[in-house]
């Protein structure tokens, strides 16, 4: 009853993939090209219109010093996107390396690496990063990227390891070993190509978690530092007046949720595509 040779559907036909990628592209365009079309920069203060509600002049209202909320949000979105993407790529690279090495080599290496994973999973990574943050107060935001990646790779690494382990005993890996192929060849020719779709999926989902992690850290003041703004710092700044001047809070929240949702929807769509094969 096996249906032989079901045609493979190209990725991109699933609604999630289309929706997620369109939304991400739109957000990225808005973040990087949008500010060019705005009459205000995000630092421009207008003390005459402090904390004013959305109006034609300021579509998302103004903040405490009269800054345009839309300009602030787009600027914050830039930083959040860059941090999220970089951290996700780094996370994926680390987890691909750790997972493949642990899964393919097995034995002692595997046990040590997995013990590290388990230890790092006991506590919320965000708290651990927060603990380190006082020492990094004056460092560049790139350090933040490193930290997010450094404490976010464990789950993907586990998944990659599990896949590598099952591939290790698969027929074609055994066949390659039997013909004398080196470990390096087996990993690069057989394991990684098989795992590429999985890694793409996880990388996309990691963008979502990295954006969330950045926002969480910045919210507590442990992430992006002034004068830089990110969605996290904006949400944090807006929380105090969320009940009185909701737009300063809701606007960055909307951008944040849209970004995370776009990445998550895209990732899930790609995963379904992967699973269907």
């Amino acid at each position, binding site marked *: *009853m*096996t*249906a*032989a*040779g*079901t*045609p*493979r*559907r190209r990725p991109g036909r699933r609604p999630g993939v289309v929706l997620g990628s369109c939304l991400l592209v739109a957000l990225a365009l808005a973040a990087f090209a949008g500010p060019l079309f705005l009459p205000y920069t995000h630092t421009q203060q207008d003390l005459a219109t402090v904390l004013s509600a959305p109006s034609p002049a300021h579509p998302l209202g103004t903040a405490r010093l009269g800054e345009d909320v839309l300009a602030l949000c787009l600027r914050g979105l830039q930083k959040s996107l860059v941090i999220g993407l970089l951290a996700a790529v780094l996370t994926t690279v680390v987890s691909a390396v750790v997972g493949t090495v642990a899964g393919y080599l097995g034995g002692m290496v595997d046990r040590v690496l997995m013990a590290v994973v388990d230890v790092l999973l006991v506590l919320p990574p965000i708290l651990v990063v927060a603990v380190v943050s006082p020492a990094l107060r004056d460092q560049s935001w790139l350090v933040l990227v490193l930290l997010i990646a450094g404490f976010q790779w464990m789950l993907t690494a586990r998944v990659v390891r599990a896949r590598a382990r099952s591939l290790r005993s*698969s*027929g*074609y890996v*055994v*066949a*390659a070993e*039997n*013909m*004398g*192929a*080196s470990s390096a*060849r087996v990993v690069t*020719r*057989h394991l990684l*190509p*098989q795992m590429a779709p999985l890694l793409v999926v996880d990388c996309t989902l990691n963008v979502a978690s990295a954006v969330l992690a950045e926002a969480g850290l910045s919210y507590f003041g442990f992430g992006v530092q002034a004068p830089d703004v990110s969605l996290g710092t904006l949400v944090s700044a807006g929380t105090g007046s969320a009940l009185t001047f909701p737009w300063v809070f809701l606007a960055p929240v909307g951008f944040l949720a849209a970004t995370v949702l776009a990445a998550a929807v895209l990732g899930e769509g790609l995963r379904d595509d992967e699973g269907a094969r």
Partner: protein
Amino acid sequence: MSPVLEIRDLTVAFRGRSGPVTAVDGLSLTVSPGEALALVGESGSGKSATALAVMGLLPETARVRGSVLLAGRELLGRSDRELSRVRGRQVAMVHQDPLGALTPVVPVGAQVAEAVSAHHPGIGRRAAAERAVALLDAVGIASARTRAAALPHEFSGGMRQRVAIAMAMANDPDLIIADEPTSALDVTIQAQILDLLDDVRARTGAALLLITHDLGVVARSCDRVAVLRKGSLVEEGGVAPLFQRPGSDDLRGLLSARTTAAGPERPAGEPVLRITGLRRQFSPRRGAVVRAVDGVDLDVRAGQALALIGESGCGKTTVLREIVGLRAPQTGTVELFDRDVSGLRRRERTALRERVQMVMQDPTSSLNPTMAVADIIAEPLRVHGWPRPEIRARTRELLELVGLSPEHAERRPGQLSGGQRQRVAIARALAPRPRLVLLDEPVSALDTSLRAEIMDLLTGLRARFDLAFLMVSHDIPLTRRAVERVAVMYLGTIVEAGTAADVLDHPAHPYTRALVAATPVLDVQAARARRAAVLSGELPDPTGFPSGCAFRPRCPLYAELSGVDRAVCAEEPPKPRQVGARQVACHHVDPP
């Protein structure tokens, strides 16, 4: 008599990605009371979909039309509740995969009891459990009362299938549907299960709808046969007349795949492989030792083919793995081309790998699905550093050798049929011009009608390139037609070795005799006459070593021996002895 099952114009379609896929297409069939009807066909011919349609267990997305009458009552279109009163009571099912069909976390006894209580709501827990024990006992599960508390994974495949049959017979059904009930089992166990099914039918008077691709099973157990192709009935009739004069190419193809031809006779050349005293032990858990290979001697000469046969778990695949690793074995020696592998340096080992290649069982898993066929075939050449132009020429040549066309080169394995995939695997093995090819059940993952074709391809290539083969197999008829020499393994040792004609046509060791007798044959008379010779029991727990002869607990000869003769079996492990032209490891087989 009115039929117990009548299928009229049944059509089953599944929702595919590009429109509906028709699995069963206007099928009509009847099964009379007490009758055994076989439903045969290649995979994808709609056999299983038919069975599930009768049971009303198709996925909800399936579209079903036509009519299924069970004892005159229409089943299609009924609610789940109504059908649940029919399932397990009037019609019962035995599934293909006995492990998958049992809930892993529920004791087997409780699952059997459930088959009882589902149709006798008032029976009470204790009475249902008692009945379950009685049923388990009836299907031949020893110490059924204690074993009823065991979980499915603690049972062997054969035992699990017995549990499934116990459930099927729990409510004296009118019809039992068995979907490939033995295809996951060894021939010896298959024979036991088929006998058990016969026995259950005799006791309950149930009719049998047996789905299979193995015509030997049909010849042994069925009255009539229906041949399916692409969801439609191709032909139907009594087993004996149809097997004599098949009316369709489908049946003819299936039949020819099973015919036994005498194997090739080729002169033997210089020694290629010599194994002496090979042992390999594993520790599956602390304190337990499995002697997977327990003292094996073998030799294979250039141009010659040797088959290792035996039940799964006898250690035959472990022997292949020990050879292909090219490492020093735990005990014993492996010599290839007169060189002991234990003394090899890394460079020498790599060089030697070119001359020893392997074809694995399942081409679906042994070929990387992301690589193009040409890259797959070229991989061993790249590993061994062949120059690029030569690789290209060799790849083209190999495609032709295994009967593929140049346009296959760019395809992925997923775009090929099972037979084509195994051809690719063979091409890959032959690529670096090996002298010795190790074959691990090279056709057992293929459809029956393809097996002979691939086996003949291998035989042809062997003759053409003077290759030596060491093949692991459990398909005796195919082995018979492909090799000159056979070695029979039981629990890690070789019990009989000799020419294929001697060992398989006139087996001497009681185990070989039982193995040959359990092999399904197409001749209906012969198939039924063989039932008496079914081997009882299964391979014992591999961590326990019986003293003396390991085969003793199952040996039909031992059962007939006198006390003095038995003592020898119990105390002394039999050493291989020359009996005529063959070696036999049994104390009580005499030279002819």
